[in-house]
């Protein structure tokens, strides 16, 4: 008796749930909304960045009140897990079931290379934060855009400032994260180092998500380099910097964090471990312009006074550019939005911002920071100062995007 009662109750609940789902799906058509997917790492090695990137994207959406060109914006998120397979599968699922036409994310280059193929196949616009050059290089296509500065621009800026700050330095040792983006940056550092009178005396590639660097550090120290130049990100970079400090490498000698999220990485380090770092980043919250001040204020309100780093800014920037394309084209059709963004030239919260139509690469400022000593900090977030801003464009002949194709 009891069993049959529960069985019938289950049936009733199921019919109510499925009935209401059916009524919702039949009453909302994809044509009434603009469906944007935020594909970010909510788990995996870059999980600390996923939530921040998502929040940045939401601030951009709140600025337009989730409405564009008279349509409501439906913003959905999926976990990229920093894994190519699950991220591509979830992007495809969101396109198929949610009618997604625009994708922003997913933070990691290896994952982006998988997602960009999904975007191309489904004719969905895709804005990637940065930075494997393949998105605007050999894997370029009409539907994908790159928000970050080109890797070549970044490495050139880092080496220039490092040499300026350490004129006697001759030898650098590289720690490189072992995946697509790491290899790209390594290639550029090795080719650019001689231009600044530097020799790469050793390279160690470490797996993504590595946390224990003592073995790498002792190996690097045995070559007596003038600096360790790091091509890794997030928790990998933080762990390595912390342990380089444990081993007494810093602050005696500098460490270059070549592609850093800036604030979000630096705040995780104690001021003592942060000393004598040269930090290259696509964003730092002290950028002095009204658009950035507005964004920083909105972000700080959401995060109890904590300013944004690269992750938050990337989420905001990706969504802003996607919305800008819609505003410029007066459309929410990916092809029209893409056409409107090609050859875009303007200013935004990071400064002068241009998009090259031939490869969809952004030409924009890359910021090089020098960390402050504890005694120089005015408050706990005053961790570094911007010492150089570089927009030097990657030479056209070394860009691998020879033909971006058509829609």
């Amino acid at each position, binding site marked *: 008796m009891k069993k049959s009662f529960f069985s019938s109750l289950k049936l009733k609940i199921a019919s109510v749930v499925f009935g209401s789902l059916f009524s919702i799906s039949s009453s909302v058509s994809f044509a009434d909304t603009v469906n944007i997917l935020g594909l970010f790492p909510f788990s*995996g090695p870059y999980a*600390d960045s996923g939530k921040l990137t998502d929040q940045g994207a939401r601030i951009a959406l709140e600025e337009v009140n989730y409405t564009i060109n008279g349509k409501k914006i439906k913003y959905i998120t999926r976990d990229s897990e920093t894994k190519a397979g699950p991220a591509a599968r979830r992007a495809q699922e969101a396109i198929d079931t949610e009618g997604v036409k625009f994708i922003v994310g997913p933070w990691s280059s290896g994952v982006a290379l998988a997602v960009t193929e999904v975007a191309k196949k489904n004719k969905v616009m895709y804005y990637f934060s940065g930075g494997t050059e393949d998105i605007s290089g050999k894997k370029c296509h009409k539907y994908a855009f790159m928000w970050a500065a080109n890797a070549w621009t970044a490495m050139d800026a880092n080496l220039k400032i490092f040499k300026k700050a350490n004129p006697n330095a001759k030898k650098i040792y590289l720690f490189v994260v072992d995946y697509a983006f790491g290899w790209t940056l390594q290639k550029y550092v090795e080719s650019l180092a001689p231009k600044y009178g530097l020799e790469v005396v050793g390279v160690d590639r470490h797996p993504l998500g590595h946390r*224990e660097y*003592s*073995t*790498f550090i002792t190996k690097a120290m*045995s070559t007596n380099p003038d600096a360790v130049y790091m091509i890794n990100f997030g928790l990998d970079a933080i762990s390595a910097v912390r342990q380089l400090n444990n*081993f007494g490498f810093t602050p005696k000698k500098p460490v270059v964090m070549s592609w850093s999220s800036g604030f979000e990485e630096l705040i995780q380090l104690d001021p003592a471990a942060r000393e004598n770092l040269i930090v290259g980043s696509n964003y730092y919250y002290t950028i002095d312009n009204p658009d950035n001040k507005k964004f920083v204020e909105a972000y700080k309100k959401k995060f109890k006074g904590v300013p944004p780093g690269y992750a938050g800014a990337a989420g905001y920037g990706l969504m802003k550019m996607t919305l800008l394309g819609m505003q410029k084209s007066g459309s929410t059709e990916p092809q029209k939005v893409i056409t409107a963004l090609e050859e875009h030239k303007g200013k935004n919260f990071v400064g002068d911002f241009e998009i090259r139509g031939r490869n969809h690469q952004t030409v924009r400022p890359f910021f090089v920071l020098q960390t402050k000593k504890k005694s120089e900090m005015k408050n706990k977030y005053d961790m570094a100062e911007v010492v150089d801003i570089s927009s030097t464009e990657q030479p056209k002949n070394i860009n691998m995007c020879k033909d971006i194709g058509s829609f």
Partner: protein
Amino acid sequence: MTFLIISQILNGLGLGMLYALVGVGLTLILGVLNIPNFAHGVLYALGAYLAFTIANLTGSFYFAMFLSPLLVVLVGFLLESQGVRRLYHAHHDYQLLFLFACALIIQEIIIIIWGPIGFSLLPPPSLSGAVDLGFLIYPKYRLVLICFALFMIVCLYLFLTKTNLGAILRAGIENRDMVKVLGINVNVVFLYTFGLGAYLAGLAGALSAPIMGLTPSMGLDILPICFVVVVVAGLGSIPGAIIAGILIGLSQGAATIWFPEATNVVIYVMMGLTIIFRPQGLFGVR
């Protein structure tokens, strides 16, 4: 080259001691309770986060190292008495799902309380900085960690071999049913075992915090290594877990010299080779 090899042995030992501590805790629980504790990693993370908070509140690093693992024991007691105990007779799938769910919940709690961004916990001034060993400049804290972890492992070994409770735990690993027949309250044995495993995980987490820092995902990062330690050691083998932990640390150090890209893969290669050539593990009997 010789200096490089010696320094990597030292590094491998430091790493291996941490792996041994956390691996012994897991193997104890697996051996006595016959449950793969998927929440072991988050107990490690909890140890680190509690140590961070206590050190900040009290200003005492040493007190934090003492208290945080004990608080993790309380969490372990709670998990065992309120959850795991109800699933001893259930299929392994349920135990596994329950503990995995606990791991995810505790990790989310860590994010809610401490936030998604990580922290640093600095060793006290007396343990900060590096010492010149002649051939290598090596962090003081890591040297102390190697000695302390070794001390803890010796204490654990003496506890397990020289005390009545230790004998009961070892008997539990060998034959749980026989322990029941002898009139010993197995619920209490299970509770203490889970608590001891949680203590070792919490202690390893707290000790690793000044080296690895704190991140919410640190528990899930260490968990696969714990299981590799158990597989290489042999299910339930305490000395095996100690030696396997150290071997894994040393193999990572060696990989960095000759094939740095493989520093993580080498762990799983060791596991694969063990499964193929010695399925019962280096010291296992079943």
